[in-house]
């Protein structure tokens, strides 16, 4: 047991829900800037802080309660029209929201939040006490208080509300008669009840600081809680629609029934019963099991799917803050938030997407004056969109900025010594744009503190590739740039094509395979010292799998697999095929040979390596047989 005393689960729930709520508040704040008088928005934001405060109280998160309480009061004034939303006030609110988010971070580390930035608290209090329209309680409170003063003793049968109120606020019943200051008493009572830990925890928690101090402060440390705190770093709970869980349950039930059927058939068969009826029943049962298992796999996979909107909703605020900092006017437009993506992928996408959005706001779009000079509206739009295309998820980050200049990118890359002049000349538009993904590339000589942050576009690309995805750029000077990320639906199951090299099967991701064709050696042409094959007018390089793996080439391969990655198309020459399969990837943990994505087991029990084509091909880049063009492509 940690100092949390059984509250860990509660804390996790709270954080997950409160984080969603805060992201929602963040977005509403962005909207509020456009519509400062929208009462519905003000109400929603008020309720957001109010709800967080209520939950935080149960977690004894005093500082969080205080901060939320002040912010909530501020919104109460705003929605009652007692305060006017000014730009300065908006900044105070944004800072307060940021403070709340930071406290969530601390809670996530199982640490009781530190007091909010005193400047933020002071600013909030300043606004609340110095509001020109007057202090809320000075204007509104006296009336009900005065009413109460004249209120006769409670009618018989009615609850004694004064007593109840007193009980509620922890004051003696007599306080109720001191009507004039009852409100302030009530207010202080809240603060008191907040300061003294009263929540759900066992009484011992009231004497020891709840959650403990920072776990790192502990002499000697507590291995279990420390480890647990580490695990908390990553959100390891998931919210699943119960109907999806029901489906899983239902399917596992059905599988159980089919298993029983098979067990009984096995007994029959072992007893020597092998008439056509038994075999037919066996065939049926196995087919049914086949169907059920693939349904189950799908259903389980679906439990991991989360709408990407949960990730997206954090971004408008980030874009807004950044734009403000840079003096730009940017609106981040979201689309396709309901698109469902594997949970792990959502987490791993967070950083690359933030980087791309920052990049779009920082480097992509122009300053308002510049835009007007170019005849564009001063406000720039950055669009973040998700959609499912077949078995892929496509993410688009598009801006309507100045676009990218291929010539300048080439010059920069040459200047930085990333490619030679010669190589630069062979690159076409698309390849030139892809140069920005090279490690060490940054178009701005001065790394801005905004999208700089020590991470480059190469990291974005690496992260996307780790998810078996790809990223490409389209850009039109003066019109804007578009980054297109393509990702598989799930990382758990990979449809593969099984190819043979001699007797040895290898698995290739089916998503890269376009077609399979026989290779006639007579049709192979040598172009620039490389083997190529013309397929319907397109000249494609032929790469033999044996050479790629460093195996001796015993006979010339008979089949070619037309493969297409985001960067290039080629023919992979293999000896033969063994069909297709849905591979469940088992990673090779610590031991991972280059070019091998993982292993899977075939239906006959044989273990097969799943090849990572991109990694295998990147080896080719260094191969002396390949010219500069191919090398440059590999950087792409």
């Amino acid at each position, binding site marked *: 047991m940690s100092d949390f005393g059984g509250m860990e689960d*509660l804390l996790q*729930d*709270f954080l997950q*829900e*409160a984080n969603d*709520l805060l992201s929602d508040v963040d977005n509403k704040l962005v909207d509020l800037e456009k519509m400062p008088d929208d009462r519905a928005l003000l109400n*929603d934001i008020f*309720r957001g802080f*109010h*709800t967080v*405060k*209520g*939950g935080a*109280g*149960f977690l*004894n998160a005093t500082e969080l309660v205080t901060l939320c309480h002040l912010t909530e009061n501020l919104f109460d004034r705003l929605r009652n029209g007692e305060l006017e939303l000014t730009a300065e006030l908006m900044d105070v609110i944004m800072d307060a929201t940021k403070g709340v988010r930071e406290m969530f971070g601390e809670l996530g580390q199982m640490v009781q939040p530190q007091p909010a930035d005193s400047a933020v608290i002071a600013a909030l209090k300043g606004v609340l006490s110095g509001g020109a329209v007057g202090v809320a309680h000075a204007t*509104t*409170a006296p009336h*009900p*208080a005065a*009413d*109460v003063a004249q209120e006769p003793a409670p009618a018989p049968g*009615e*609850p004694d*509300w004064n007593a*109840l*109120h007193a*009980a*509620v*606020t922890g004051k003696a019943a007599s306080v109720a008669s001191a009507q004039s200051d*009852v*409100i302030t008493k*009530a*207010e202080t*009572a*809240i603060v008191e*009840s*907040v300061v003294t830990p*009263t*929540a*759900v925890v066992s009484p011992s928690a009231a004497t020891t600081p709840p959650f403990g101090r920072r776990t790192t402060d502990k002499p000697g440390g507590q291995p279990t809680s420390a480890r647990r705190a580490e695990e908390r770093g990553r959100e390891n709970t998931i919210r699943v629609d119960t109907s999806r869980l029901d489906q899983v349950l239902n399917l596992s039930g059905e599988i159980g029934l089919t298993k029983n059927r098979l067990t009984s058939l096995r007994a029959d068969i072992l007893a020597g019963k092998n008439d056509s009826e038994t075999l037919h029943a066996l065939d049926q049962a196995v087919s049914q099991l086949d169907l059920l298992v693939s349904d189950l796999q799908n259903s389980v996979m679906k439990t991991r799917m989360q709408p990407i909107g949960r990730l997206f909703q954090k971004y408008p605020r980030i874009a807004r803050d950044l734009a403000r900092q840079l003096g730009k006017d940017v609106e981040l437009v979201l689309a396709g938030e309901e698109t469902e993506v594997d949970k792990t992928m959502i987490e791993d996408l967070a950083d690359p997407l933030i980087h791309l959005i920052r990049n779009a706001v920082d480097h992509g779009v122009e300053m308002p004056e510049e835009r007007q000079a170019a005849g564009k509206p001063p406000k720039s739009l950055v669009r973040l969109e998700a959609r499912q295309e077949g078995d892929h998820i496509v993410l688009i980050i598009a801006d309507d900025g100045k676009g990218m200049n291929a010539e300048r990118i080439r010059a920069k890359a040459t200047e930085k010594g990333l490619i030679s002049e010669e190589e630069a000349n062979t690159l076409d538009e698309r390849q030139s744009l892809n140069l920005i993904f090279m490690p060490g590339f940054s178009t701005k000589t001065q790394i801005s503190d905004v999208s700089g942050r020590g991470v480059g576009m190469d990291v974005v690309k690496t992260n996307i590739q780790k998810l078996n995805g790809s990223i490409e750029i389209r850009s039109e000077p003066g019109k804007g740039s578009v980054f297109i990320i393509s990702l598989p639906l799930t990382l758990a199951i990979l449809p593969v094509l099984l190819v043979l090299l001699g007797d040895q099967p290898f698995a290739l991701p089916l998503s890269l395979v376009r077609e399979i064709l026989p290779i006639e050696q007579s049709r192979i042409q040598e172009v620039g010292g490389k083997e190529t094959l013309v397929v319907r007018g397109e000249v494609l390089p032929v790469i033999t799998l044996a050479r790629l793996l460093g195996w001796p080439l015993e006979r010339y391969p008979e089949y070619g697999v037309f493969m297409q990655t985001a960067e290039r198309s080629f023919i992979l020459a293999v000896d033969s095929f063994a069909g297709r399969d849905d591979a469940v990837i088992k990673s090779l943990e610590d031991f991972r040979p280059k070019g091998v994505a993982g292993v899977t087991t075939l239906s006959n029990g044989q273990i097969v390596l799943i090849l990572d084509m991109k990694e295998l091909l990147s080896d080719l880049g260094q191969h002396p047989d390949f010219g500069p063009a191919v090398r440059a492509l590999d950087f792409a």
Partner: protein
Amino acid sequence: MAADPKMKFLVVDDFSTMRRIVRNLLKELGFTNVDEAEDGAIALQKLQGGGFEFVVTDWNMPNMDGLTLLQSIRATPSLKHLPVLMITAEAKKENIIAAAQSGASGYIVKPFTAGTLSEKLNKIFEKMGQA
């Protein structure tokens, strides 16, 4: 305690963590027959389905807030007898008065312990016993 442990509660709050907290506290007090609703509108629908004997509701919720829910319950002949305990983050006098005038059976301020909840519930059960 006079209360039947099988008594069916409806816990109404838009914040699921809060519903869970209240549910856990009720469980601690021996009440395990608990259903949940996300806001007043859903609560009212569930209540009209029948079978509920006690309502514990948050005040501040989207769609239909706790006070409106309370007023709707009191205005519905089949539901008006239901005890309703209001939960809120504020101990503001005007809130308490509004709740009382609308016929709340009790009023409890966040955060609270199982002990406080038990006290409030017992007060309400006593009153119901008298009625």
